[in-house]
């Protein structure tokens, strides 16, 4: 039951975007289309799981005063490895995700989970935490991107879904649209969570 809790807390109760407001920079940048959102979500989840495993394995060797530089080195190496391996062996996937992979280094969800969770918990629950947080981040990205893509281009996942006579509100896929969408969604999400409890 505890394991299930570790897995699901990232999705609603501690959702990285809507509740903790972590990693907003990449969220603003890549939530312009559902395709991008899925790519960024998958890549970030993978790095999150990987860095959580490594950090929870070596947590006892790292003196607490230098833990942040140590975490950053581990995360950055992880991202670089993923970047290079993907470019060599999955070139077409890398072409569509390539832009987001270096962005993961600056995604503070990963550093945040390393500091708040992986450095204090066992490997097993760190993996579950990574998966849950990754799913929560991906779902939030997909929701934001769906709204922005439909309003901004009349498309969903690259397919036209609104009639061609619809004049797209281009503002929605530009940076202001990201702030509006995230702000409104965050307010609705918090209202819903408050009502439930």
């Amino acid at each position: 039951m505890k394991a299930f809790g570790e897995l699901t807390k990232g999705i609603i109760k501690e959702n990285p975007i809507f509740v903790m407001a972590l990693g907003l920079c990449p969220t603003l940048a890549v939530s312009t289309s559902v395709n991008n959102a899925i790519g960024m979500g998958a890549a970030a989840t993978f790095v999150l799981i990987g860095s959580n495993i490594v950090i929870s394995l070596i947590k006892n060797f790292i003196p607490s005063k230098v833990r942040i530089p140590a975490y950053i080195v581990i995360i950055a190496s992880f991202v670089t490895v993923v970047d290079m391996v993907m470019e060599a062996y999955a070139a077409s996937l890398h072409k569509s995700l390539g832009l987001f992979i270096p962005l993961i280094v600056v995604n503070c969800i990963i550093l945040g989970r390393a500091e708040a969770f992986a450095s204090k918990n066992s490997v097993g629950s760190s993996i579950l935490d990574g998966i849950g947080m990754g799913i929560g981040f991906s779902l939030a990205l997909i929701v934001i991107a769906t709204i922005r893509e439909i309003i901004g281009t009349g498309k969903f996942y690259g397919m036209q879904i609104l009639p061609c006579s619809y004049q797209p509100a281009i503002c929605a896929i530009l940076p202001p649209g990201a702030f509006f969408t995230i702000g409104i969604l965050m307010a609705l999400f918090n209202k819903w969570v408050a009502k439930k409890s």
Partner: protein
Amino acid sequence: MNDVVKMGLVLLIITLIASCVLAVIYQKTAPIIAKNKQLEEEKARKSVLPEADHFQEITEQKIIGQDTVHTILYYKGLDKHNRLVGYTFRCEKYGYSSNVQTMVGIDTLFNIIAIKVISQQETPGLGANCATSEFAEKFQHKTPENIMVDKDGGDIESITGATITTRAVTNSIKEKFIDIKERLIEK
């Protein structure tokens, strides 16, 4: 004092391991990545000059100081019987938020056969539409003289909300195209 040494040592070990891992993986993947890029360029050349079977690199030698620098000017497209079917070249210009690279295929009479935007990071939904086939089709059968954005008096219809990107693609093609045409006519 002891503490400082210990912290330094731990960081040293972590960074040492990290750099070793990265070095090994880089060495393993770098040649594959280079090969992938080459294959991709070859594929892009084929897509803009479908009649060609293989390509021949035409380079220019420039002497800068003491070094001789080879720059690739364009590629000759040859068919199975080694007959010339056209040329391809790559051009680039800074658009709205990125360098827009385009591959262009032309026939022996200097008409554009096809173009393909091979790399860009323009605004999604606006400038990024320059990579669509609808946009590429606008360049078909054009000669260097009549490539110009409609807002500058030409007949390339610009992408809605992305005149700057359209202009970057159009002008980069025009400049390189004129340059290559002149070189070929001189011969």
